[in-house]
Structures are given as structure tokens and as C-alpha cells.
């Protein structure tokens, strides 16, 4: 006796039984039963499979069987099949090729209930091909006698248009007519579809504005009112004259509709559309405490959302509601805290920055905020770097804050953090001395600062190296001993850290110019060039080592001058030297060879290549002609086509050639013999010096 679906459920609920074993047994039974030709057994199997799918089993392999069950005449079987289909078919499933016909039969069939349940499933699984095929049948259904059918098909159109936008142009007017349908459900479905379309292309649906306005004034259904409010926001974007017309119904709704959901919606709409209207804003400000002061956390949350919009209109509201924002940040509710964070981002001024950052950093350390740690730190960084550090008054304090954040060790923010640090130290000269000292202090504990890419560490090392001229004697010594510690190699940092260390050592010497420092630097660089695993770091160490030990100490002076940052477009004012002109030939072999009798043979012909080679005009002409002849004979050279080739017409030459070959197969052999030897492959000599001695 095969188990029924209920048996399976009961079986799963029994405490003592081994679930996995039970499920596996049921699954193997299903695999057998589903192949049966008896629809009753098949349907039963599909129902059980559905239960297993809720447990995580895959249903797609049974797609064809599901389709068979769907096509049954019996309503219960069809219903079960359609349910399984809506769960497991996807728009990219292959089975949908077969299912299209089934759905077409259902849509044109006489049985209302069957059609209804088919539309339910169709709305979940329809893809572009099906949309195209079934569009016309759906349009016919728009005029069905039963309102439930019309209602369902109206909302189905949304999915059809999503998948097959071309159908929109043909059918949309028919759909728009349904706005005046007598059944409110049909109107609701149509409004929903039109709203979704307006989000994509508002001008397309604009002509329905009149009908929509009428509905707005007559309907009492809150769901519809909300959708219409949203719709009109989209429409006003393309037709500003609507603004005046809708102000009346919006004000009416704002003052009369008791539902909080509608109230919220219309308040948001007014903030977007009527932000210069003082009357409207006054009413909103009256309503706002109803949200913010409410005991219902949902309303509090919505109140903060409204506040956000209001502050974006007029920053002065921020002062009044500061208490709410601070309270919200301390709320037990994560969602409300996140909203509060958003508000803090837009209400902080340069006066309140220090206080705000202090509060935020306190929040970061609280264990309850573990989930939103990232958002808190992003907000800090956002505020600090806002509009090119507009809010910051004391950069030394800012740098201390940045170092504090480095200690929080958030990997996501490291890149941004290090770029802000470097940016601010480079731009603000007065900061450099303090920044060096602070960086040095932080670097003392470099062991703890290890992360995946070590961007923060690299930035700090760069700062103490680049600006080591600001160090006094003592600190310079400290810095040097810090970067020469053997511990760096042991801890296996990211490559960029070692690169930065080598550069740092080099720069420290450059600034200091003392002998004892010189020895320490050279020793360190020698070690680096051997001990560190990364090739790039070794190479850099060697490079610096070479410069320090072999070059004339006087020539090092040119490195001592600090490089200033320049604007990217300044590069355009510097002309490249002659050697880098366009017709610079990297390897002569590519262009020509000198034959044994002294003449030059060219392989490629380019005007610009002749620039550097001294030749008379006559010689040039001869050379060009030689090249052209060679190209005509060369089977590998693609000749430039003269005039456009017509599509679809094979070239006559090719056809003739084929005919020729068919008649006389020996032609091919002759052709082969005629071919000149293949051109010499150019060789690249990479060891050759770029600038010949």
C-alpha cells in the first residue's frame, strides 16, 4: 500500500524515527511511483514529492511527470500538479516548451476554475517565449464574463510585459480600458500592473492619468489608494502639470484617512512632490509626533524614515529632532538604530562632529552593536571624509580617530581608511609632524595590525618613511630600529608591507644622511633582499641597495628634493622625449632584413616606419612597390576589400574556383607548388639593450 501524503507528514512528525532514513525510503518510493501510468498514483507521488521539497529535496527531475499530472482532467490532480509546477518550474526550465500548449488550452477553455488556477501558476513561471505565445489569449480573457478571470489576467499582464516587452505596445490600451471595469478587483489588478509599468516608463502610461484620478477620488480601498499615490509620484515626473491637480485629493487623504499606512504613504509623497509648500509641510509636522512618539516600534521606524526625508528638504528640522535621533541610536532595535545612523550622517555639522564621532566610536565598542559595527564605522569614515573633509576642524584629532579605527581591525574599511590617512597627511602640511609621531606610536605594536591586505599598515609605514624629515633625532632612531626589527619577516605580512619597508628604510637614510644610519640601512636591505619570500620585495631591496652602495653620493641629491603631488592633467604639458616618438622601432627584424648583398628587404609597409630611416624619395618609392608586390603574392596577407560586399551573396570567384577544382582536382597540387616560401618568423631578442651602446 503506497503511503499517502498525510502518512508521510505523520511519519516525519514521529519523534523516535530516523528522519533521514524515512525520507530516503519515501524518496525512493516516489521515484518508482511517479513513473506509473495511473494518474492517481502519479499525483500521490507528486504530492509526496512536494512535501519532500519543503525538506530540501530537489523536484525538478520530475518536471515531465508534473506536467502530465497538470494535464489531467480531474480537478484535484490538476490542482496538485499546478501547485508543484509553480514551486519547481522556473522561467528558464526546459519543460516550459512543452507546457505552453497546455496553458494555451487552459486559457481558452470553458472551465473558469481551471483557467483561474492555471493563471495562478502561470504568473510564477512565465518566460519570454510563453509570453509571446499566450499574449493574445490573455487579451481575449480581458473580456471574460467572470470578474475573477478578468482580475487575475490583469495582474498576469504585468509578468507578461516584464518577459515580453514588445507585447506591451500592442495590448496595453486594451488593458487600460479595464480601469473602468465595474468589478473593484479588476480595477485593483489593473492599477497594480500600471504602477509597475510606470516605474519603468512613466510616459507610456501617462494617458491613463484621467481614469486613475477618478479612481483616486472614488475608491475606499486602502491598498488601491496607496498604489495610486505611488503611481502619481511617477507620473508627475513626466507631467508636472498633474501636481496641481493631485494636491487636492492628497490633502484630503492626509487629513481624513485614518489608516496609518495611507497616512505614511501620502506624507512621503508630499515630501517628494510638494517640498516647497509650507501648508502641506505644516500638516506633516503636526502628524510626525504621531509616529515618533508612538509606542509601536513600527511607527517609530516609519517616523525616522519621514524625518530623513524632511531633513533632506530643510536641514533646520535637524535641531528640533536631535533628541529623537540620539535616542534612536540607543534603541534595542537594530533596524531603528540603522535608521538613526542614516539620520546622523545627514545632520552632523562641523560643530557637532567631534561629539558625534565620539558617540559613534563608543557604540562600536558595545557588544550589542556587533551586527552593525561595519555600518557604524562606515558612517564615521563618511562623516570624516565628507565633501573633502569639510566638517573637520582639527586634523590632528581626526588622525587620532583614524588610528583608533585602525585598531578596530575591520577588513572591509581598510582600503578606504588607508586612502583617507594618506590623503589627509599629504594635503595638510601642518599635520605631517604629528602624524609621523602618532604613526610611529601605533606601529610599535605592528604585530597586532596584521590583516589580509595590510593596507593600513602599509599606509603607516609609508607615512613615517616619506615624512621622516619631520622626525627629531630620537624619533628617527626609534623609527629606524622599528623598521629594521627582524620580527617583520617572521610574521609573514602581505607583500606590500615589505615593499613599503624597503622604501621606508631607503627614505630614512636619504633624510638622515649619517654614516651609522647608512650601515644599518644597507644591512637591512641586504637582509630583505634575501630573506623575504616575495620576488617584488627582493627586487626593490636590491634596487635600493644598488643605489645606496654603488652610486656617487653626490648624485643622490636629486632624490632628496621632495616630489610634490601634481594634477593629473599636468602630465599633458610634458612632452615625451624624441626617443619615445611614435615611429620608434623596437625591433628592426619585424620590418626588414639586410640581405647578404647589402640591400634591405622590407616585410611590412607603414608610412610612419620610414620616419627614422634615412632614404631618398626614389628609394622610398621603390621600397614601397617591392613591399606591395610581395603582399600580392603572399598567401597569408589579407588584402583590403574595395567597396562593400553584399550580404548573402557568395562571391562569384569562390563558386568558379569550386567548379574548377571539381573538374580538375590536380589544380590544388599546382597551387601548393606555386606558393612562395612562408615569410620568416621574426625573432625577438629580449637581452638586447634598449639603447644601443
Amino acid at each position, binding site marked *: 500500500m503506497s503511503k499517502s501524503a498525510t502518512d508521510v507528514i505523520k511519519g516525519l512528525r514521529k519523534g523516535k524515527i530516523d528522519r533521514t532514513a524515512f525520507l530516503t525510503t519515501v524518496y525512493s518510493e516516489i521515484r518508482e511511483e511517479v513513473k506509473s501510468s495511473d494518474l492517481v498514483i502519479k499525483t500521490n507521488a507528486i504530492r509526496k514529492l512536494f512535501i519532500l521539497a*519543503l525538506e530540501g529535496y530537489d523536484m*525538478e527531475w520530475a518536471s515531465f511527470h508534473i506536467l502530465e499530472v497538470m494535464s489531467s482532467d480531474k480537478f484535484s490532480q490538476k490542482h496538485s500538479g499546478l501547485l508543484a509546477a509553480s514551486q519547481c518550474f522556473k522561467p528558464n526550465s526546459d519543460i516550459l516548451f512543452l507546457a505552453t500548449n497546455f496553458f494555451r488550452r487552459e486559457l481558452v477553455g470553458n472551465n473558469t476554475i481551471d483557467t483561474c488556477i492555471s493563471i495562478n501558476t502561470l504568473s510564477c513561471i512565465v518566460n519570454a517565449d510563453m509570453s509571446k505565445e499566450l499574449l493574445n489569449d490573455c487579451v481575449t480573457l480581458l473580456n471574460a464574463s467572470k470578474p475573477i478571470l478578468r482580475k487575475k489576467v490583469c*495582474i498576469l499582464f504585468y509578468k507578461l510585459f516584464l518577459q515580453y516587452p514588445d507585447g506591451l505596445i500592442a495590448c496595453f490600451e486594451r488593458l487600460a480600458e479595464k480601469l473602468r471595469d465595474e468589478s473593484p478587483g479588476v480595477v485593483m489588478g489593473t492599477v497594480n500592473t500600471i504602477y509597475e509599468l510606470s516605474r519603468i516608463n512613466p510616459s507610456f502610461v501617462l494617458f491613463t492619468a484621467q481614469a486613475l484620478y477618478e479612481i483616486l477620488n472614488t475608491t475606499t480601498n486602502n491598498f488601491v489608494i496607496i498604489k495610486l499615490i505611488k503611481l502619481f509620484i511617477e507620473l508627475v515626473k513626466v507631467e508636472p502639470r498633474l501636481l496641481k491637480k493631485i494636491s487636492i485629493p492628497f490633502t484630503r487623504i492626509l487629513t481624513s484617512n485614518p489608516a496609518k*499606512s495611507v497616512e505614511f504613504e501620502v506624507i512621503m509623497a508630499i515630501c517628494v512632490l510638494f517640498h516647497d509648500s509650507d501648508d502641506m509641510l505644516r500638516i506633516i509636522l503636526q502628524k510626525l509626533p504621531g509616529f515618533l512618539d508612538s509606542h509601536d516600534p513600527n511607527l517609530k521606524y516609519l517616523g525616522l524614515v519621514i524625518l530623513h526625508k524632511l531633513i533632506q528638504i530643510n536641514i533646520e528640522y535637524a535641531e528640533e529632532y536631535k533628541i529623537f535621533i540620539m535616542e534612536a541610536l540607543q534603541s534595542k532595535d537594530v533596524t531603528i538604530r540603522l535608521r538613526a545612523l542614516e539620520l546622523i550622517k545627514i545632520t552632523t555639522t562641523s560643530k557637532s562632529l567631534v561629539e558625534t564621532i565620539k558617540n559613534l566610536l563608543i557604540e562600536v565598542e558595545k557588544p550589542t552593536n556587533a551586527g552593525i559595527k561595519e555600518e557604524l564605522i562606515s558612517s564615521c569614515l563618511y562623516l570624516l571624509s565628507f565633501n573633502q573633509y569639510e566638517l573637520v576642524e582639527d586634523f590632528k584629532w581626526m588622525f587620532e580617530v583614524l588610528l583608533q579605527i585602525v585598531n578596530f581591525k575591520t577588513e572591509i574599511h581598510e582600503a578606504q581608511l588607508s586612502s583617507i590617512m594618506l590623503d589627509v597627511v599629504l594635503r595638510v602640511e601642518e599635520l605631517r609632524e604629528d602624524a609621523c609621531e602618532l604613526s610611529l606610536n601605533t606601529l610599535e605594536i605592528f604585530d597586532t595590525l596584521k590583516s589580509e591586505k595590510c593596507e593600513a599598515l602599509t599606509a603607516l609605514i609609508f607615512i613615517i618613511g616619506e615624512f621622516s624629515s619631520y622626525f627629531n633625532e630620537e624619533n628617527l632612531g626609534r623609527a629606524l630600529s622599528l623598521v629594521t626589527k627582524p620580527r617583520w619577516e617572521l610574521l609573514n605580512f602581505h607583500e606590500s608591507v615589505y615593499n613599503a619597508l624597503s622604501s621606508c628604510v631607503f627614505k630614512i637614510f636619504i633624510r638622515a644622511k649619517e654614516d651609522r644610519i647608512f650601515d644599518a640601512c644597507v644591512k637591512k636591505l641586504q637582509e630583505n633582499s634575501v630573506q623575504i619570500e616575495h620576488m617584488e620585495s627582493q627586487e626593490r631591496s636590491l634596487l635600493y641597495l644598488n643605489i645606496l652602495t654603488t652610486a656617487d653620493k653626490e648624485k643622490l641629491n636629486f632624490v632628496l628634493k621632495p616630489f610634490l603631488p601634481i594634477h593629473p592633467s599636468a602630465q599633458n604639458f610634458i612632452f615625451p622625449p624624441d626617443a619615445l616618438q611614435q615611429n620608434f622601432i623596437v625591433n628592426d627584424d619585424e620590418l626588414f632584413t639586410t640581405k647578404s648583398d647589402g640591400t634591405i628587404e622590407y616585410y611590412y609597409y607603414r608610412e610612419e616606419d620610414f620616419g627614422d630611416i634615412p632614404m631618398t624619395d626614389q628609394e622610398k618609392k621603390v621600397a614601397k612597390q617591392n613591399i606591395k608586390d610581395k603582399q600580392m603574392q603572399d598567401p597569408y596577407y589579407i588584402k583590403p576589400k574595395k567597396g562593400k560586399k553584399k550580404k548573402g551573396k557568395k562571391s562569384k570567384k569562390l563558386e568558379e574556383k569550386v567548379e574548377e577544382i571539381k573538374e580538375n582536382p590536380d589544380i590544388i597540387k599546382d597551387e601548393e607548388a606555386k606558393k612562395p616560401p612562408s615569410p620568416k618568423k621574426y625573432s625577438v631578442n629580449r637581452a638586447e639593450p634598449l639603447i644601443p651602446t
Partner: protein
Amino acid sequence: MIHFILLISRHGKIRCSKYFSTYSNKEREKLQKEIKGLTIGRNSKLCNFLEYKEMILVAKRYASLYFVLGQDKEENELISLEVLQFFVEILDKYFKNVCELDIIFNFHKAYYLLDEMLVAGHIIETSKKQILRVIANQDEIMEDALVETETRSS
């Protein structure tokens, strides 16, 4: 629009899952796992809205079941809460004082009810009477079929 509705038990079992947008099986599993973590055990004194990826989750606990709905950011959150409430009320009317057991054993009915209420992620019927009438109609047809097969087999 509404992207999905999930009914999750206190222990994390998915009792009902309806997707109105396309999600591959893997994506569904991941989604369900993450949402279970976010919603189960959440204090009912907190607000019902959660930010999740580019969506907002509206979650409410009714007795031993968590009703979770995933909506676009632009949708009205309070209305989505209404949708959940409406769904629960319909279930209640249909099953006469619904409890989780009803949904465990009659999950297909829950899906059928949901289908009459929401199509393509939008609510299309706000009258409980209408929906219940349609479902009663469907039940009748199924009953007739059952009687027919029984009389045929006997």
C-alpha cells in the same frame, strides 16, 4: 512588489514557501537559511521590519509560526504587514481557529488560499468572503470527484 512569503516554525522548519520572483534552488536555500537566522528568536517588542540585501523583510510571529514577507524597498511596509494579517485571518476563517498543525497537514490549502489573495507578488483580492467562496467552490469540486472515485471503486 512582494518577492516571497515564508512560513517558518519556531524550530526553523519551512512550513510554506511561495516565491513570486525567480530564485534558483540554491538561492532559495541560502535565502531561507539567512532569513531563519534573522527572524527566529527576534523579540516581538521590536519592529517588524528588517533590512535584508536590497529588500525589506516584514516578519511577524503568530503563535508558533513566523510569517515572513520579502518586499521591495519602495513598497509600503505597513501595508505588507496588513497583507500578512489578512493572510492569517483568512487561514483562521477557513480552518476555524487555525494553528500550526492545520498548516502542517493541509499545506496545499494554505497555498491555494494564498493564490487567491496574491498573484504575481501583488494583492488582488481584499474581500475575505470572496476568497473563501472561491476556495469552498474548489473544495466542493474536489469532494465530488472523491465521491465519484469511491462509488466507482466500490
